[in-house]
Structure formats: structure tokens, C-alpha cells
């Protein structure tokens, strides 16, 4: 079973939920992997330590133009759908804007003069850490400055197969990186906070998941701050409230040090076990 932990709004506690759920299930002896899909700012490794097993580079092809063979016909520029080829035909100026290139290969296909060859461009790295005999952490880490985290996220998700349970700690928002992460999951846990911003972004996530046909449930974090509107929203939409976590300075302090609440407090380990049970029940119901 694959479970994505996501949120529209950043900083609601995705990583907090993912790492504590992973820790709880790992301790219970489940065969489980966690994938840190927040490739722009991966943080799971601050909470879960393990032994580095494997690391690989995520590469994308970018064109290199051989100025000697180029006839400045402009066909590659015309074929590029990303404005990644800067071309001034009359002045015989042609240049690849690597930051805009998506590596689709259209320019190479277009060139009739063999003037375009391709080189590998680093997009990010995927690292696999062994946490216990039954569990691993796979981290997607985008290279600073590249145009998209998506290739790195996809590579990490691919590398994560082979466990009974896989958790995806998703990137924030509802654009491509989020979609790429949740689309491969069976169930999505949306983490929100009871504020107008949290609710607005939750609504957008719920609508998006609905259009993808993904079942989801909600965890409300930092309850007690803000207002109760999120709870009425969940009721109206018939969405299941999987767990409520109060705003608590002690919990915030444990998180801030890179520690896991489920290691510091047995009661919370119990609650995360219950969260997992709720998720499996909800997922089961969604399939009926």
C-alpha cells in the first residue's frame, strides 16, 4: 500500500506526520519505505537516520550545438516548445538556454545536419538509506538551481518499490510535483492547520484529489490555534478526520530539534498506530 502525505499549504506538518508514521510502523516490524519527495527542501533525514546504501544521479539530456555543423536554419528553435534555444538567424547566433531545457529531444530530432549532440545535465540525486532490516528512506534531492524537481521525484518514487508499505512525503502545493507524487499512491493523507490559509489550500487539494479519483483523509495539526472552520468543512464534505494534533510548545520543541514525537512519547506512538489503522480502514472503505 502506498500512502502520500501532502498539503496545499507549506509548513503544516507533512514531514512531521510522515516521519512519525514511518517510525511507528517501522518499530512495529512492518516492511516499510519512506520517500522524501519534497526534492526542493528534503527534511526527512533530519528525523530519521540510517546507513547510506546507494546513491545515484538523476540526469537529463541537454543539447550541445556544434557551431561548425550548424547551418543556422532555425528548425531546432522552431521545434523547441520551451524557448530554450536562443536564435538570431541573420546574425548567426545560436545558444542553448540550459535552465529552460526540458530534455525532450525535439531539437535533436529537428536538426538535419547532425549539429546537435546531447550531454547529461544533473537534475538531482536519489539516495537510499537503510533504517532497519525492514525499512529504508529514499531521498529525492533536487540540485539547487534546476528548473524542476519532477525528474528527481519520479526517479526516487521508482527506486522505492519492494516494500509492503511506502510513504511519500510530498512537496507542497497542487502543481506538477504534488501530482507526480500523489498519482502513484493508493491513499492520500492531507495535513492542514485550522487557519484561513490552511483551509483555503486544503480545499484546493481536496478538489484536485477528487478530480484524480484519489481517496483522502485529513489530519488537523496545531488545533487550538486559529478557528474551527476546518472541522465544519470536513463534516460538510463528508471527509474523514484521521487525527487531530493540538498546538503544543513541547511538540513544537521536539520537532525543532529534529527528534521524533513517537520516540519521545509512548502515548503518541499509540496515536500514530491508530492513525495507521484509520488510514487502512478508510482506504478499504474507499474501494467498496
Amino acid at each position, binding site marked *: 500500500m502506498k500512502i502520500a502525505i501532502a498539503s496545499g499549504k507549506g509548513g503544516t506538518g507533512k514531514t512531521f506526520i510522515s516521519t512519525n508514521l514511518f517510525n511507528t510502523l517501522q518499530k512495529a516490524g512492518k516492511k516499510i519505505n519512506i520517500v522524501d519527495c519534497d526534492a526542493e527542501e528534503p527534511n526527512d533525514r533530519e528525523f530519521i537516520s540510517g546507513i547510506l546504501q546507494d546513491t545515484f544521479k538523476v540526469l537529463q539530456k541537454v543539447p550541445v550545438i556544434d557551431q561548425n555543423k550548424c547551418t543556422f536554419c532555425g528548425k531546432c528553435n522552431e521545434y523547441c516548445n520551451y524557448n530554450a534555444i536562443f536564435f538570431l538567424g541573420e546574425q548567426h547566433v545560436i545558444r542553448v538556454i540550459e535552465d529552460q531545457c526540458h530534455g525532450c529531444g525535439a531539437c535533436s530530432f529537428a536538426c538535419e545536419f547532425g549539429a546537435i549532440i546531447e550531454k547529461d545535465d544533473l537534475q538531482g540525486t536519489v539516495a537510499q538509506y537503510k533504517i532497519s532490516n525492514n525499512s529504508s528512506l529514499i531521498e529525492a534531492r533536487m540540485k539547487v538551481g534546476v528548473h524542476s524537481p519532477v525528474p528527481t521525484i519520479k526517479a526516487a518514487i521508482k527506486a522505492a518499490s519492494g516494500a509492503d508499505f511506502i510513504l511519500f512525503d510530498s*512537496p507542497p502545493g497542487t*502543481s506538477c510535483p504534488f501530482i507526480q507524487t500523489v498519482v502513484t499512491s493508493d491513499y492520500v493523507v492531507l495535513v492542514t492547520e485550522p487557519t484561513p490559509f490552511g483551509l483555503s489550500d486544503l480545499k484546493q487539494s481536496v478538489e484536485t484529489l477528487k478530480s484524480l479519483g484519489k481517496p483522502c483523509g485529513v489530519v488537523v495539526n496545531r488545533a487550538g490555534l486559529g478557528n474551527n472552520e476546518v472541522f465544519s468543512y470536513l463534516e460538510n464534505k463528508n471527509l474523514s478526520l484521521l487525527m487531530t494534533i493540538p498546538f503544543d510548545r513541547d511538540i513544537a*520543541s521536539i520537532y525543532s530539534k529534529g527528534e521524533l514525537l513517537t520516540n519521545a512519547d509512548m502515548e503518541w506512538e499509540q496515536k500514530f498506530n491508530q492513525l495507521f489503522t484509520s488510514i487502512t480502514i478508510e482506504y478499504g472503505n474507499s474501494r467498496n
Partner: protein
Amino acid sequence: MEIAVISGKGGTGKSSITAAFATMQSNIVLADCDVDAANQYILFAPTQDEEEIYISGFKAIIDKTLCTNCGVCVDFCRFDAIFDIGGEVEIDQISCDGCKLCSRVCPEEAISMVKEDKSRMYSGNFRNGKMVYGRLAPGEENSGRLVNLVRSKAKEIAKANNIETIILDGPPGIGCPVISTITGVDQVVIVTEPTLSGLHDLKRTLEITSKFKNKTSVIINKFDLNSEMAAAIEDYCHSQAISVIAKLPFDKVVVDAMVNCKSVIEFASESLIANLLIEVYQKLITDN
């Protein structure tokens, strides 16, 4: 002048701080560049005087009546978006990157490209001046182009109305939308929090900002949730010659302000946090 507020890590308080900056004087342009999870309009309920359609990209679709299932497109697609499922060629809309190569190679001209046109940019008035914001449709690519559009609209409005200051609310992360937000602005303010994740994400954010020549400073928000970590962040900033312009205490009044659809300046002008923010803002607009 343009002041951009970014954060790396989500949920550090970027939007609340931006909202405070936007309500300290009466004649301001506020640009919400967090197009994937726009929130400022919730607080300020701006008029929608103008609406512009933003084309975020393209998706390929197959005309089944023309397709012979020859599979040429499958071989050329580099995004694993076209599959041969039991002799039928299908395009996965989620993986499709919109490069158009499949459409170009198809011998039957069976593939056409459709525009992704659900994203919007809005502009209008709010109580302290003018506001521009983008709303990216779920699943569309957040390439930074919509952010560029929001920024040029904001500049155009500022010029037409003789407004000096533009405040930009940036997206989380370190990808293209962030780069688009900070390129060429006068001041970059990074809002962080005293957690291990906050520090990790700040380091990656500073890696991005160091590639630009803007003035960059840091606000440590909720610093008293972990004073030791706040001190570690200060030390790190010091070592990088980045000034920490404010350390703001955790105060529930910030959330209460949001719940009341006000900035903390409007909601609790006498509070310590409001006063600290006024000081910071003065520093930012005079140190130019």
C-alpha cells in the same frame, strides 16, 4: 523599490509578515507570487478589475480515428507519458510535458496539442493600494512564467499610479518560481523558523540567493520556540555575512489576525510583534 519575502521552508510565517508589510502605508502594490497556493487575497479581498488567462503549457491528445497504433510516438517520448497498452497507444496526461515531439513525429498526424489555459492572473484594489495575484490551476507546471507575469503587471500598475513600493509574497522552495520572484528585486527577506528543518532549508535558500546580487536579510520567526536553534541560525547567518534583521517571538495574535482577515498591524497595532515588524520595514525601505 521591490521587496520580496521568501522562506525556503513553508509555513514559517512568510505570508503573515508580507501582509504586515503591505499594511504599513497606504499606497502600495502587493504582488502574491505564491501562485500555487495564493493566500493574500483571502486577507485583503481585492477587487478583480482585470483577469488575464495564463497559458501554462500544452498537453498532447490522440485522435483515435486517425491513430494506427504504430508506436513511433511511444519511442520518441522521453517523459514516459505514452504507452502501448495491449496494442492501443495511450497518452498519460499527467506525465505529458507538452513538448510536442510526438505530434511532430506522428506519420498520421493523429496527435494534436491542447492549451492548458485554466490558470489566471488577477489585479485590482485593496485597502492599502493595488494588488496583483496569480492562481495556477492544479496540476499545471509552476515554471516561474506566471510569477514573471505577476511581477511585470505589478510594476506596470506601480508606474501608472506613481506607487513606489512593491511587496512580493514569494513561494516556498528553491525552484524556478522562487528565482523568478527574487530576480532583480531590491531586497530579499528570508523568513525562517528555529527548527533543524528551518536551518537546513535556509542554507539551500541562501545558496540560491547568493547567485544574485540583491540585498538579502533574514527574519527568525517564532524564535522563542527553540532559542538554541535560533542562536545556531544566527551564527550560521553571521558566518555567511547575512544580517538577521529581526527575531520575532511566537505570538498567537498573528494567527488571530489571520482568522479575522487582517494583518497583525491592522489587528494588534500595539503588540510587540507589530512594533518589531514596523522597525524591520523601516530598515528595509531606508537601507536601499
